[in-house]
Structures are given as structure tokens and as C-alpha cells.
């Protein structure tokens, strides 16, 4: 239906279609849906990782450990989560 109500209904419908339900990031080279809240801390928790045993890079910048609970991940973020392993 044309007119004010029709236009409003149409735009609400469009915004529901285009807003992502959860952010999708690239984690260690693989796509991953991020849990809500979309923080580094929550992601590490979901993966069962101890924050003290890893370091995190987000879009090539190191994420300080103290900010894991504060940093909000956004769609398309590239994360590297690394740790120490055996090596020579």
C-alpha cells in the first residue's frame, strides 16, 4: 500500500533483513559466528580457552588482556588467537 504507513512497514522489513543476527568474524583463518555478548572474553569462554594462556590480535592490532571484556567484535573482524607450543 502506498503512503506513510506502507513506507514505514517497508523500511522496518528491510532493516530486519539486512542487520546480521550475530557478527561473523574470521578466527584463525576460519569464519566463526560470535556469541552474544560479542566480546573477546565471551569468545574465549565459548572456546574453553584460559585468557592467561593466549594472546589476541584483532585486525593486526594486539588486544590488551585487560580489555577482553570490553572489546566488542564486529562483523568481518579478523582475529588471531595464539599461544606457545613446542618449537626449536
Amino acid at each position, binding site marked *: 500500500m502506498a503512503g506513510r504507513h506502507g513506507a514505514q512497514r517497508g523500511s522496518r522489513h528491510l532493516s530486519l533483513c539486512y542487520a546480521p543476527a550475530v557478527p561473523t568474524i574470521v578466527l584463525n583463518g576460519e569464519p566463526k559466528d560470535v556469541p552474544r555478548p560479542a566480546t573477546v572474553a565471551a569468545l574465549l569462554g565459548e572456546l574453553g580457552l584460559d585468557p592467561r594462556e593466549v594472546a589476541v590480535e584483532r585486525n593486526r592490532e594486539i588486544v590488551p588482556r585487560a580489555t577482553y571484556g570490553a572489546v566488542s567484535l564486529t562483523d568481518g573482524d579478523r582475529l*588471531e588467537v595464539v599461544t606457545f*607450543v613446542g618449537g626449536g
Partner: protein
Amino acid sequence: MTTPQSPQPWTLAGRTLTSRLIVGTGKYKDAKETQAALHASGAEIVTVALRRVDLTVKENLLSWIDRDRYTLLPNTAGCYSADDAIRVCRLARELGIAELVKLEVIGDPKTLLPDNEQTLQAARTLLDEGFTVLPYCSDDPIVCRKLEQLGCAAVMPLAAPIGSGLGIQNAHTIQLIVEQAKIPVIVDAGVGTASHATVALELGCDAVLMNTALAEASDPVKMAHAMRLGILAGRLAYEAGRMAPRPYASASSPTSGQIE
């Protein structure tokens, strides 16, 4: 307490060390074998690598390695550019373990020989950022001199390619490096058996760093013992001051008083 049989301790970046063997933690069968080999080696510093977390691995290395016994030395293995090596060191620092870093920038995947130019570039930046840098490099006195002049805490010339087990390929240049260096010289890469380590110490090197020589031995723990003894023998021989070599013979028994 030192005895005639005890070699002198050495100093690396302000740390006094008794062991002249630094070992890697890679390529062993499992954590148990790694622990046993490290213990047998007597090492005080062990290298570790930095990689993406493997969610299938149950126990993180940090949970079982004895941090009271060993200083962890993160390496930049697998890096082919100064930028990547710097990135790895910063991540190691974020992990809280980067008092010392082993800088490794590789030039070729087949030989794993170092890219000395990128190594020098990375060393410059890392030193500016306050890292204590131990650079893996060629057995080239010029590159070692440049790394020392930049402020690296030691130089780590290779014996032969990483994991090759070939032993020191150029004893002459290793000796030149030892002669000119005012910082420790640690032979790193290419050692295969105990006599290789002995030769390194006899040439005046301060220490040896190895991984594959232990991990790929049929009995890694026994080889770690052998390396420990080989290094001890080499260092004692060096401190004892070996005889001067001669081109011809010098009899060991008296030349007079023989029956006729």
C-alpha cells in the same frame, strides 16, 4: 663451588648460567618425552614457538612446563619477513613471556637459511622496542658484527641448516666470529650428535642451541645426556688450553737412552 672438573659459568643478557646447552621443545613424541629430555639436558633456557591455538590439544604447554626451572625463549620460527617476526615478538610480550626472544627470519623454505637482511631490520626495531634479542644468523663474521653493533645480547650463527644434523660446516668462520665477538656466541641449528657440540665449545663458543638432534635421536633422553657431557668436555678442553697442532711428529717417549 668450582673444581678442576667444573667449567666456568657464563653470562647471557645479565643472567649467569651454568648450562651451556639451550634446547628446543619441538618434535618430541609427547609432553612426557619432552620433559624427560629437557631434564636430562640440564638446560636452563628452552625455546618455544608461537602458533594459533589448536582447540584439539587438551593441555597447553604453559600448563606443564616448569617455569621455575626453565626460562622460556620464544622464537619467531616460520617468519619470512621482519614485519612478521616483529609481530610474533609483540604477541609473545603480550603473553608475558618475552624477556629474551630468539629472532629467526628465514629466507628459503627448503634450506631454512636465515635472511640476514630482514634479520638485521627486525633486530633494529625489536631493540628499539626494548626486547632482548638473540638472533639466529649465518656463520658470517660480518653479519655477526653488525648484529652485535646493533645491540643484540648474543649472536647465534648456524652450524648447518636447521634440522640437518650435519654439524659445523665452517669451523673457520665460527672461529672468526668467536674471536671478534664481545657478546656470547651460541651455535644454533644443524647440530646432530655430541661431537658436534664438543667442537663448538672447543672453538670457543659459549653455548649450543639444538632441538632436532635430541627429538630425532632414537633415544632422546640418552642423547640429551650425551650432549650435556659433550658440551662439558668441549668447554673443559677449551679452558684447559689445547696443545698447539704441528704438521709433523713430536715423539712422546725419550729419544735418548735407547738400547742399541
